[in-house]
C-alpha cells in the first residue's frame, strides 16, 4: 500500500515537472492602450484563438500567450487605431506559432480579427466586427447596431443575438447558424455549408441566404412579417406558413420554389439554393 502511494506521489511529481517545463515555453505578454470613442482595433494571428470582450473605460487591453519563441507579437498604436500582429519566425508551425489572445476593447470599438485556425469570439460590442479565418470556428454574440462581416473557408459560424446589424457572412463549407439575428441587411453566401436561421426576421430588413449544395433551414414564429421567396434548382423546398401569393421574377414551380407574404411583409426574405434543400419552418 505504502509502496503504491509512494509510486503515485513520484508519478505526480514527474507530471508536475513536465507541465511546468511545458509551460515554461509559454510567454505571457500584456499590452495596454488608451483610446478615444469609436476606436479601431485589429488583431492578426496566424494560429490560435482570439477572444474579444468589452472593457470598462476607453482602454484596449491585450493579453497574449505565446507558445514558443518562434513567434513574436508586434503591436502599434496610431491615434485611435491599435494593431496587434503575430509574426511567425522561420520554422514556426501551427503549434509553435500559436498565440492565444484575450482582448478587451471599448464596447463602441470596431474590431477586426484574423486567425487561420481560430477560434474567433466576440461579444457584447456595438461597433463593427470583421472576422476572418480559414478553419476558425467563429462565434459572435450580443452585438448591436454594427456591421458583422465574417469570412471562413471551412470554419463554422455562429451568430447569436445580433440586433440592428448589417450582417454579411461568406463561407465555402462552414455551417452557418444565425440565432435571433435581425437588421436592415443580413446576407449569407455559402457553398456547401448548411445555413440555419432561427429568429423573427425583424421589421424592415432584407435577408438573403444563398447556398450551392448546402441545405437552408429558416425557422420563424407565426407572427413573423415577411415577404418570402424560396427556390432550389435541384433540391426540394418546404414551407410551413400559409402564404399570400406575391409576384416573382421567375416561374414558381411547386416543390422547387415558393413565394408569398406573411403578415404585413415588413422584411424581405430570400432563400436560394442550387441543389440544397430549403425549409421554412414555423416555430
Amino acid at each position, binding site marked *: 500500500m505504502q509502496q503504491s502511494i509512494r509510486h503515485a506521489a513520484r508519478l505526480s511529481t514527474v507530471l508536475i515537472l513536465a507541465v511546468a517545463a511545458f509551460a515554461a515555453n509559454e510567454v505571457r505578454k500584456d499590452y495596454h492602450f488608451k483610446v478615444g470613442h469609436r476606436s479601431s482595433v485589429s488583431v492578426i494571428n496566424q494560429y490560435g484563438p482570439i477572444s474579444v470582450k468589452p472593457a470598462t473605460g476607453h482602454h484596449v487591453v491585450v493579453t497574449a500567450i505565446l507558445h514558443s519563441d518562434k513567434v513574436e507579437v508586434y503591436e502599434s498604436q496610431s491615434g485611435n487605431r491599435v494593431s496587434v500582429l503575430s509574426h511567425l519566425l522561420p520554422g514556426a508551425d501551427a503549434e509553435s506559432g500559436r498565440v492565444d489572445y484575450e482582448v478587451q476593447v471599448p464596447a463602441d470599438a470596431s474590431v477586426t480579427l484574423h486567425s487561420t485556425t481560430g477560434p474567433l469570439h466576440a461579444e457584447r460590442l456595438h461597433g463593427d466586427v470583421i472576422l476572418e479565418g*480559414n478553419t476558425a470556428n467563429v462565434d459572435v454574440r450580443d452585438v448591436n447596431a454594427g456591421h458583422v462581416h465574417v469570412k471562413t473557408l471551412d470554419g463554422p459560424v455562429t451568430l447569436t443575438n445580433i440586433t440592428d446589424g448589417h450582417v454579411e457572412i*461568406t463561407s465555402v*463549407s462552414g455551417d452557418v447558424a444565425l440565432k435571433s439575428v435581425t437588421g436592415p441587411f443580413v446576407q449569407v453566401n455559402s*457553398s*456547401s455549408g448548411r445555413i440555419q436561421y432561427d429568429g423573427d426576421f425583424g421589421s424592415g430588413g432584407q435577408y438573403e441566404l444563398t447556398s450551392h449544395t448546402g441545405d437552408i433551414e429558416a425557422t420563424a414564429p407565426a407572427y413573423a412579417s415577411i415577404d418570402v421567396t424560396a427556390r432550389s434548382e435541384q433540391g426540394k423546398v418546404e414551407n410551413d406558413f400559409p402564404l399570400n401569393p406575391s409576384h416573382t421574377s421567375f416561374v414558381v414551380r411547386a416543390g422547387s420554389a415558393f413565394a408569398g407574404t406573411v403578415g404585413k411583409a415588413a422584411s424581405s426574405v430570400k432563400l436560394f439554393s*442550387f441543389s440544397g434543400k430549403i425549409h421554412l419552418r414555423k416555430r
Partner: protein
Amino acid sequence: MTCEEFQRVLPENWGGHTVEQKEHLKSCSACSELVSDLNAISDQAGLLQASEEPCPRVWSSIEIALRQEGLIHEPQPLRSLVPALPRWRAAWLMPLAAAFLMAFGVLVFERGTGRPQLAQQPPAPSPAMTAGVRLDRGLSVLAEDEQLLKLMAARAPALKAAYESDLRAVDSYIRDAELSARDNPNDEVAQRYLMNAYEQRAMVYQMALDRSLP
C-alpha cells in the same frame, strides 16, 4: 497519286515516304504544307515530353471541360473521342489532337505559374460567350488553382488539402452557376448564384495570399 490517296496512306508511312509520295509532295503544295505542319507538331510534342508535365488534375479538367462543351458525349476517358470518328479523319486527328491538347495544357499551365496577380477577381462571365472561350477560361482557372496550391504547399503544407477541397467546391459552384446563367440569361437568381460563386473564389484567393506565413 492524288491528294486523297496520299493522305490515306500517310499515317502508315509516317517518317518515310515512297518515291511516289515524294513526287506528289513536290507537286502538291497543300499536302506538302500538311506534312510540314505535322512534322512541326510532332517535333514540339517531343520537346514537351521533356518539359514539366502538368499534374493529372489538369488533364482530367481538360476532359471535364470538353465534356461540358459537348465535345465528349459519353462518360468515357478523353481518348474515346478518337475511335468515334471515321478512320481517315482519326488518322489525322490523333497526333494533331494529342499535340494540341498537350501544347495547350502545358502552355496555359506554364503561363499560369508566371502570373503575379493571383488575387484578381475573374472577369464577369457573359452568357453569350463561346464554347472556346469558356474552355480557355476553364483551363486558365485550373492553372491558377494549381499555382495557388503550389504556393500553399510551400508556405503552409497543412492547409493545402483544405484549400484544394475548397477550390474544388467553388469551381463546381461556378460551373453550375455559369450553366444556369447561360440557360437563363434573364434570371436574377441565376445571376446571383454566379456572383456569389465568384465572390467565394475571390475570398479563397484573398485568404491564401493575405497570410504572412513564414
